[in-house]
């Protein structure tokens, strides 16, 4: 009996192992004809419906009706690896938080899907119309605030709220993280930065309240209405409520509890916060008083914080969430599934080079950096990581003209900066490497690359660790890898300002304003304080200033040439080495119907405008 039990246990163990090692499982052979049914699909991928009942393939009528009702229909269920932290638009740090802030608050201007959902438009949200130019130079702008807007509690929302928000953004005592961006980004507001730094009074700042529905902005340089709108559409400029903001303020007026919990927050955006358990779950319901409520089909949105992506995948497969972001390994599983959605990410992942490292002077050698640039087999790497190869630095998402839906990469200037074979030229790379080594008098070189210890970065770093020595000669070049947590890596990279030997090579990827690629280059200007690499180039600064502030920048083609020139100045001497552009992959449930027909620049898949059709 004992022996039989042991035998059974052994057989069980072997069969379990065999099942793990074998791809085979029971099922139909190919020889017979296969029967394809919708039911199989629904059971497997759609899971249970919200009411808990599974629906068959009987004819469905759209429960949403012909127009969105004031209360909407259906709850969009999301899962997020990120936590919201704070809904205070003036202090948030995570871009994920900004998405939720935008859902529950309003900005003067916002990005909306066009009527046919094929493009993105910038238009007034709280503002009634485009900014009105008040002087000939284009430095004074009036903004009319929409009438009839209200907060969640029914209080009026007008120009006074906007004015209070502006004052709080720049408040010197609160020292908000977003103040400098508001003072000077797409436009520079007169004396705003001086007020924030305590060098000017509020009256001197170029922000004026004209009446309950009119505001005025004075800028340092000449601008056009689009630039003013882009500046004011940033989520950091979302409205805050004076009553709640003051209620949460401490005695010194240096901090406020606003946005830290449901008790200290009030909504006014397309959705209202209905229930919020910090770091765990948030539920929004449709705001019937939102000016564009007639475009919102959903009754609400529920977001659960699920940090593990495998658990998110299981939730999706069980029908408990409506879409999920796919990891590379999960994407391979669903590669051919028609429900997969692909979205290019608004950033190019690149190798950053510390050119002033005194211990590795070869990093300052242009030929050496170019050798690294031409030595990256981007196509091969991208096929491994399921990204797009990128030998450019301006992502494909960056628009030159929002109204015409033209991206920089679509233009002739953008195309001229592209290189054959995605910039991979092994012969040229080897030649440049040999020349650089001989110029520096080196026989062997060992470099260290720091990377954040994520699955993707490890894969990309290990790829370069193998491919560069293979190309340049393992006896001549060695790449060591050093993994570390992302926060620490960020400090190491920015540490070059105090310790020039803080790193040699690492990874970077800036998310710039995709509607203003000329402005997205600010990360490489000499006056940007949080730079990853010591790239300081007077010519680059000059072109940047011209593209952003010169009077002739609106002339036909001028700005386009300047953007192309800035990209060339970065890439030609390989001051940064672009490698890939991420592609985000999603899997969407059948009960969720998108309004867009695929990815749309800036607004993505416009989840908030989708319908629940079960």
């Amino acid at each position, binding site marked *: 009996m004992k022996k039989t039990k042991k035998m059974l246990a052994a057989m069980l163990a072997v069969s379990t192992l*065999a099942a793990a090692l074998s*791809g085979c499982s029971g099922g139909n*052979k190919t020889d017979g004809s296969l029967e394809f049914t*919708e039911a199989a699909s629904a059971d497997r991928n759609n899971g249970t419906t919200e009411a808990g009942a599974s629906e068959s393939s009987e004819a469905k009528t759209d429960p949403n009706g012909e127009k969105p009702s004031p209360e909407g229909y259906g709850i969009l269920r999301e899962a997020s690896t990120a936590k919201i932290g704070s809904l205070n638009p003036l202090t948030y740090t995570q871009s994920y938080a900004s998405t939720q802030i935008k859902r529950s608050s309003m900005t003067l201007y916002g990005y909306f899907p066009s009527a046919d959902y094929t493009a993105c438009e910038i238009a007034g949200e709280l503002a009634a119309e485009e900014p009105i130019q008040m002087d000939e130079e284009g430095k004074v702008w009036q903004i009319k605030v929409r009438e009839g807007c209200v907060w969640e509690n029914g209080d009026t929302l007008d120009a006074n709220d906007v004015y209070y928000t502006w004052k709080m953004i720049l408040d010197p005592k609160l020292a908000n993280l977003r103040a400098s961006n508001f003072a000077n980004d797409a436009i520079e507001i007169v004396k705003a930065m001086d007020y924030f730094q305590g060098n000017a009074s509020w009256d001197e700042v170029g922000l004026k309240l004209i009446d309950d529905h009119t505001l005025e902005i004075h800028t340092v340089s000449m601008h056009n209405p689009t630039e003013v709108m882009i500046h004011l559409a940033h989520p950091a400029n979302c409205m805050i409520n004076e009553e709640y903001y003051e209620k949460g303020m401490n005695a010194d007026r240096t901090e406020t509890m606003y946005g830290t919990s449901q008790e200290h927050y009030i909504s006014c955006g397309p959705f209202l916060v209905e229930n919020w358990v910090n770091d765990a779950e948030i539920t929004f319901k449709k705001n019937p008083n939102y000016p564009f409520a007639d475009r919102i089909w959903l009754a609400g949105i529920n977001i659960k914080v699920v940090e593990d992506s495998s658990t998110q995948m299981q939730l999706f497969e069980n029908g408990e969430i409506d879409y999920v972001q796919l990891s590379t390994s999960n994407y391979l599983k669903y590669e051919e599934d028609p429900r997969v959605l692909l979205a290019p990410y608004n950033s190019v992942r690149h190798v950053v080079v510390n050119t002033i490292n005194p211990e590795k002077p070869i990093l300052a050698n242009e030929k050496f950096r170019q050798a690294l640039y031409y030595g990256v087999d981007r196509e091969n790497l991208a096929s*491994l990581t399921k990204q797009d190869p990128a030998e450019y630095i301006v992502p494909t998402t960056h628009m030159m003209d929002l109204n015409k839906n033209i991206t920089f990469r679509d233009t002739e200037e953008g195309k001229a900066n592209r290189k054959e074979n995605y910039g991979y030229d092994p012969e040229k790379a080897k030649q440049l490497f040999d020349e650089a080594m001989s110029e520096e008098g080196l026989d062997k070189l060992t470099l260290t690359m720091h990377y954040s210890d994520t699955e993707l970065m490890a894969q990309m770093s290990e790829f370069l660790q193998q491919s560069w020595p293979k190309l340049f000669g393992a006896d001549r070049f060695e790449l060591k890898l050093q993994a570390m947590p992302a926060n620490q890596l960020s400090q190491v990279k920015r540490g070059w300002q105090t310790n020039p030997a803080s790193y040699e090579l690492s990874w970077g990827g800036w998310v710039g304003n995709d509607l203003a690629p000329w402005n997205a280059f600010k990360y490489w200007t000499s006056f940007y304080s949080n730079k990853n690499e010591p790239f300081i180039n007077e010519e680059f600064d000059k072109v940047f200033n011209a593209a952003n502030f010169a009077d002739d920048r609106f002339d036909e083609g001028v700005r386009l040439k300047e953007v192309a020139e800035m990209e060339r100045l970065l890439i030609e001497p390989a001051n940064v080495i672009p490698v890939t552009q991420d592609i985000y992959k999603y899997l969407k449930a059948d009960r969720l119907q998108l309004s867009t027909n695929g990815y749309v620049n800036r607004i993505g898949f416009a989840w908030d405008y989708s319908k629940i059709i079960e």
Partner: protein
Amino acid sequence: MVLYEDNKAKYDAVSKDLFRLVQRDEKIHDVEFKTKPIGFFMDVWLRFVKNKASVIAAVIILIISFFAVFGPGMNEYTYDEQHTELTNMPPKVPFIAKMNLGFFDGGYTMENRKYDNLNDPEKYPEGCILEVINPRLVNGERIVDVVVDYYKYKGLSDEQCFWFGSDYLGRDIWTRMWRGARVSLIIAVVSVCCNVFIGVVYGSISGYYGGKVDMVMMRITEIINAFPRIVVVTLFIMVFGTGMFSIIMSLVIKDWVSTARMVRSQFYRFKGREYVLAARTLGVKDMALIFRHILPNSIGPIITSSMIAIPTAIFSESFLAYIGLGLQAPEPSIGVMLSRGQKVLLQYPSQVVFPAIIISLLMISFNLFGNGLRDAFDPTLRGAE
């Protein structure tokens, strides 16, 4: 005497002829042992081999150690050789594949594939499809799961194979796993040796001198023991970066304390014995007393605790690797492989199953081996069986 006095008459009456003197002409000595004499270690060995579980554990450790040394050289791949076109290959061993057992045959289920593509020879080379299962309609598209011979699907010949499959960069898991086992064993053995060395010296001095010396030294160990391990590891990694040195140091910095305490307690037990007093009276110096006369008594507990410390060190290394504080890439360790493998557990189970089996075997074996040694070295068990 009382007995004689009381019975004097009776005893005096006994004839003296009844008595004779014995051994007056013989030498008196012990009877010679019929068996060979057994030394301490032979005694330990004899009792150790009686414990079957420990012997099996020792054999498993030897086998794993053998593969850790020679395994990485058993096929044509190196541990860091990438085959970017052959990533995530399933396990295949040619002679097992020919037996059609259903495993180690390179079979893999590709899920959610378009049925209409199955006849495209560019996507599915001839003969690679073994089975088509789970037909269904998804958004009007005919979708199936396809069981394929993944090696044929990738256009490889029958000879080319990865015995345990390949990872996310197309590196051979067999080679990496045995190299990882080697690295794990090296880390464990080196850290345990360092712990034993420091612990023995520290514990000996503390236990031998006692008094204030002991009090101060033991308080220092308590302070060291109070540091959370994760903090120590993080500090080492921040200063020295990730790598074998940081991991070994983080294991050494705290773990010698238990050895020191154990040795100290042994010294307290033996330092008052007569033979030690005798040696001291004869003028033997302190160091000779410590290391020659007292320490050998602790050899059993030291070996036992070292053996039990090895799996703890392997586990700690794996844990550190698992939470991303492991070795520098591309160097593998069992922990690094488990950490990467668990992320694709559902898609490519073989990437986690093999390292998991090896670490489980190592942990169980070292524990059983350590238990066996403890029983064998325990003097109270001598002759008990």
